[in-house]
């Protein structure tokens, strides 16, 4: 348990301290939702219809763009070997890394979605639900993203490979998330998002750990 908490704390600190690590996806997301209304013009109905799906696409791509470094550094600097030698299972350490990524990258992004939703003309009373749905959706993205990042860890410029592997798994949360953001079937869509998040948190670390064991060879 100690090893898992230590890995979580170290990764969170590294992501936070590493400059671009945590802020780049946030900047990417904010940039997309600020530019969208400017690009679409002042038509309020268009913005209300297109804004929420657009915010979800921006969140998905912001996470996708930052996944590449998740395991690559550990593989290159020898940290992965040390993780393999821990008594704690690699799956649990991978989960800790994913949780740190969610905390440092995902949570600020979900919180930023609050003000972003206002610029996209979402009604104020819907904002807490949108933030909650993004917290779940980002957990689902990161769970799936762990697998892609692990498979591509040994590949220079593995971003394209990650995108190909991971994007199909981004589709369900984007569908349910956009539905929440548009105010359609909020309850069921939130429940399904929660399901996606659970699926990602449980399957992701196991699949990612299996891929990392192969990478260590």
């Amino acid at each position, binding site marked *: 348990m100690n090893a898992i908490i230590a890995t979580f704390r170290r990764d969170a600190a590294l992501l936070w301290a*590493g400059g671009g690590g945590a802020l780049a996806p946030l900047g990417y997301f904010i940039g997309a939702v600020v530019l969208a209304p400017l690009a679409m013009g002042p038509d309020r109905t268009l913005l209300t219809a297109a804004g929420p799906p657009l915010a979800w696409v921006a969140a998905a791509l912001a996470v996708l763009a930052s996944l590449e470094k998740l395991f690559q550094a550990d593989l290159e600097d020898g940290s992965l070997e*040390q993780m393999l030698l*821990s008594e704690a299972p690699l799956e649990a350490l991978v989960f800790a890394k994913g949780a740190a990524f969610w905390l440092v990258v995902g949570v600020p992004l979900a919180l930023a979605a609050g003000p972003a939703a206002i610029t996209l003309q979402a009604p104020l009373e819907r904002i807490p639900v949108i933030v909650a749905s993004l917290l779940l959706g980002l957990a689902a993205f990161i769970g799936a993203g762990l697998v892609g990042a692990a498979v591509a860890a040994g590949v220079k410029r593995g971003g394209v490979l990650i995108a190909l592997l991971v994007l199909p798994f981004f589709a369900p949360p984007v569908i349910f998330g956009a539905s929440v953001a548009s105010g359609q079937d909020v309850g069921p869509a939130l429940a399904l998002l929660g399901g996606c998040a659970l699926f990602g948190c449980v399957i992701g670390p196991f699949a990612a750990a299996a891929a990392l064991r192969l990478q260590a060879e």
Partner: protein
Amino acid sequence: MAAFLSVSSLSVRRGGRLLFEGLSFDAAPGDLIEIRGANGAGKTSLLRVIAGFLRPARGALQFKDRADPQAALHFLGHQNGLKGAVSAHAHVDYWARLLRGDASDALDRVGLRTQAELPARVLSQGQARRLALARLLAAPRPLWLLDEPAAGLDADGRELLTGLIDAHRRNGGVVLAALHESLGSAPSQTLDLSAA
């Protein structure tokens, strides 16, 4: 004394090429086994097989009463396992938690007490290697797998390394080291992979 580790008729293949085959040896507590061989003879691969990172093409490894051999060994590879932004002290602290040990005097013993708060990225190559050596001390584990452990170390550092290996052997530890030049500690066995 009973062997801590028995290796029997081990063959290792990398990228379709057979590096060595039929390698057998036993390691007992207190042993230092030197692994010699030309570049590409398979020294690193042998250590990685024993560490469980690589699967052998054939042969078996047997650890004495160990359900989880990876929790009984240290691996010091070419990479030091350091993060540039993290201080020396925080590294040792993390290793002690990750590998279950006690970090208190590890930095002192490798001569990095004054560098404890420096981030790893400003350490010299030799200091970074010393920090990696501190990992061996931060968690007590019976088997040390060292790949070119003296790389980057100065004369003092090599002496320090010899001292650490001697102390580990006296405590009943086992050391397997891939080396180009002998260290001060007298090996109990030398494996020459080029000859195999």
